[in-house]
C-alpha cells in the first residue's frame, strides 16, 4: 500500500469518496440517509466509469441506478413509513461476526488476486464506450440475450404486480371489518 502516493490524485479522491459513501450506507441508522448515501456512491462510481472510458455506462448508471432504482427504494421507504430511525440495531456480537466474515472474504479475495499477477492496463481505443459502438454490439452480438432480458423484465413486472396485489378475499374481509 506504500504505492498509494504514486497514484493519480483524481483516482485517490474518487475512491476515497466511494468507500466513504458505501460505509455510510451500511452504518447510517436512518434509512433515508442510507438511500441518499447510496445515490452519492453511485455518482462516484459513474465518475469512475468516465475515467475508464465508459461514458455511456456512466450515464446509464446515473439514470437507472441513481435515478430509477433508488427512487423506487425511497418511495417504498416513504410508503412503509420507515423514514425514522426505527430500526433496532443488532448486538455487538453480530457486528463482530459480520465484520469478521466480510473481512475474511476481503482477505481471501485480495490474496487470490495477489497471486494472479496482473499488470498495467492496455487502454481502450477511442470511442469504445460510446453509444454508437455499444449499440452495434448489443444489436448484433448480444441480440438474443437482449431479447431475453425483455422477457425477464415482463415477467418481473407481472411478478411484482401480482405480489403487490391484495387478495380479493382479503379486500372483502378488511372492508367488512371497516363497516
Amino acid at each position: 500500500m506504500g504505492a498509494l502516493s504514486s497514484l493519480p490524485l483524481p483516482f485517490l479522491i474518487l475512491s476515497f469518496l466511494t468507500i466513504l459513501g458505501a460505509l455510510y450506507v451500511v452504518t447510517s441508522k436512518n434509512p433515508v440517509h442510507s438511500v441518499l448515501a447510496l445515490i452519492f456512491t453511485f455518482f462516484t462510481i459513474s465518475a469512475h466509469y468516465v475515467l475508464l472510458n465508459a461514458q455511456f455506462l456512466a450515464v446509464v448508471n446515473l439514470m437507472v441506478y441513481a435515478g430509477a432504482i433508488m427512487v423506487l427504494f425511497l418511495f417504498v421507504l416513504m410508503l412503509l413509513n420507515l423514514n425514522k430511525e426505527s430500526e433496532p440495531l443488532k448486538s455487538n456480537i453480530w457486528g463482530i461476526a459480520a465484520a469478521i466474515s466480510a473481512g475474511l472474504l476481503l482477505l481471501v479475495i485480495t490474496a487470490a488476486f495477489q497471486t494472479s499477477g496482473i499488470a498495467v492496463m492496455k487502454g481502450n481505443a477511442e470511442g469504445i464506450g460510446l453509444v454508437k459502438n455499444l449499440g452495434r454490439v448489443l444489436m448484433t452480438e448480444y441480440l438474443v440475450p437482449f431479447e431475453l432480458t425483455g422477457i425477464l423484465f415482463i415477467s418481473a413486472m407481472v411478478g411484482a404486480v401480482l405480489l403487490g396485489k391484495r387478495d380479493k378475499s382479503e379486500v372483502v374481509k378488511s372492508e367488512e371489518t371497516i363497516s
Partner: protein
Amino acid sequence: MLTIFHSLEISHYIYLSTVLFSIGLFGVLFRRNAIILLMCIELMLNAVNLLLAAFTEYMGDVQANGQMFVFFIMVVAAAEAAVGLAIIVMVYRNTRKTDVSFLDQLKD
C-alpha cells in the same frame, strides 16, 4: 484515455471493488431492515460492475464485452429490486415489520 492514468494498474480497481463488495456484504450481514439489505446487495452488484468496466479497459476490448455485461447486470438488478421490494411490501402488509430477524419461518 487520459494520460494521467498511465501509471494506474488493474489491481487498484480490484482492491477498490473488493472493498466495496465487502462493505456491501457486511451491510447484508449486519443490518436488519430488509430494504437496507436490498440496497447493500445493489452496492455489491455495483462493485462488480465497476470491476467489469475496469477489465474492459484492461483488455483493450474493441467489442466492449465487459460493458455489455454491465448492462445485463443492471437489467437483472432492476428486475430484482422490483420483485424484492414487492415482496417486502407484501411481508410488511402481513407482519407490519420489515425486520428480517422476525422472518424465521424457514425452519417449518
